[in-house]
């Protein structure tokens, strides 16, 4: 069989688009909610378990449910993917912030930083390695979940896979699966590069020594 590269390229772009947009939204949501939850430790005791339960609902079910209420639109896919992309980032933001050593918080308070300054100058920089770790997980997962877009006719590499499965065409399945896997690898590597860039130098050195 011959591969139509222009179609392939278009599907890769669609897939990439879904992934990038939903990971970006998920990142903003996840970091924001993660920060808010650390400010409400009592609330977080109830919310975090609920979120992990939600996290286990299969993506197929969730996209299906959203489809019922929102219809066959790209927004349906983006909302579903963004919410899934948010989970690992939220969890890691929360973990990263709550595991900042008390001595730094005490020093920050003693220096006269207000809540926002503490967050920006101390807590977020120190939690950054963990947060970016969450972003990496989220990105790789979202590449695979974006296959679900094809389920409600919104394109992406999932098109090849669904067509391949329904027509029992393994080559077509691979034509969707292999680029998706490569996409996950490339995006993962990009996040790793970002990790090196945004993690404070002082923390990297400390980790190398450990």
């Amino acid at each position, binding site marked *: 069989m011959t591969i139509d590269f222009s179609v392939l390229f278009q599907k890769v772009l669609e897939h990439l688009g879904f992934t990038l947009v939903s990971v970006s939204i998920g990142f903003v949501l996840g970091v924001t909610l993660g920060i808010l939850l650390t400010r409400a430790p009592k609330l977080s005791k109830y919310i975090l378990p609920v979120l992990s339960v939600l996290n286990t609902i299969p993506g197929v079910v969730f996209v299906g449910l959203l489809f019922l209420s929102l219809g066959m639109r790209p927004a349906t896919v983006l909302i579903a993917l963004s919410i899934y992309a948010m989970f690992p980032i939220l969890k890691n933001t929360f973990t990263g912030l709550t595991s900042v050593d008390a001595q730094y918080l*005490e020093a920050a308070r003693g220096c*006269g930083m207000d809540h926002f300054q503490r967050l920006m100058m101390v807590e977020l920089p*120190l939690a950054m390695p963990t947060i970016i770790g969450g972003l990496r997980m989220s990105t790789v997962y979202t590449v695979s979940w974006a296959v679900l877009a094809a389920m409600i006719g919104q394109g992406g590499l999932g098109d090849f896979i669904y067509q391949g499965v329904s027509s029992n065409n393994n080559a077509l399945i691979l034509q969707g699966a292999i680029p998706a896997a490569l996409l996950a690898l490339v995006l993962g590597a990009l996040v790793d590069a970002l990790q090196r860039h945004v993690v404070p130098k*002082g923390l990297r050195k400390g980790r190398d020594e450990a």
Partner: protein
Amino acid sequence: MLQFEHVSLSYGGQKILNDLNFEIQEGQFAVFIGPSGCGKTTTLKMVNRLIQPDSGHIYLSGKDIAAVDRYELRRHIGYVIQQIGLFPNMTVAQNICVVPRLLKYPKEKYESLVRELLAMVDMPYEKYAHKYPSELSGGQQQRIGILRALAASPPVVLMDEPFSALDPMTRRSLQLEMKNLQQKLNKTIIFVTHDMEEALDLADVIIFMNKGNIVQMAAPEEMLANPATEQVREFLGKHQSGPAPADLTAADFMRTGIVTVNQNRGIHECVSRMQHHNVDTLLVVDENKCYQGTVSIADIRLTGHVVKSIGPLVRDNTPTVMAGDNAKDCFDLLISSGSPYLVVLYEDRTVAGIITKTSMASAMAEQLWG
């Protein structure tokens, strides 16, 4: 400078601080000490409003701190903690400049400020300013911790057991540096420790706390001389020496139980006594036990065959002192006379003991090292 007025704090029905009243003068090095849980750290943290009292007022430079914005207040009070807490994501220079940044100092001032501060602790700017805390030793980290507290020139610096996590050598040198810095910069220091030696070395005034109360507030010398309670005395422990060196008398360090012999006794008895006690000289006394002089084995060997009793052989060229004489005078006499020992006498001229160079050395050692 810093004044506590009826400050109390309870936590869960338990009194943590009980009606504290004290005042610390400007430029004083005030050290809080006491058993753990006595409230010393709590008291310290009230000064920069990390902990709020239930009742009472705290005045800093005449202003009630409850009326000052707490972030603004903390930026004008230095704070050094035991865990050091340098921000690992910032360089040495950035750590030092944290408070100036919060106070919005012009950026151009940062470099000269960092240079000036690093010079105070002998850490060259070129070598250290752009290092990260993880690249420094514990002692260097705490030096930077102190500089961070001093960077915005606060009049008051709070120090919560700042040196207790350091090894003894490093601790010692940081204590000395801190004392010098404090005197040079004329800072008021509020310092918490559980180490009495540290308190005695650094403090202008020591505040001893127990169970949320101030047990004693006094200068180190005063506390050593008059500990208020048994507990304070225990804390002072080995640092509390006996009488001051100036008050020592000959009786305090002379050797007692000295072998004497009556001047009428025979040569033979005298020699056997020397053999028995393994000495070469005896102190000679009369019937009333009054000191007469000394007799030495050398004189007995030389002329012992012509006399029956030791009376004629007695020499009185050994210097004598009285038991109540000042110790220092005795030492001076011992050294200037060239005699191997001094004889110490009571008022009635009976023998009290002798002072040798060995007893002098051990007395001095005891004064020095306890």
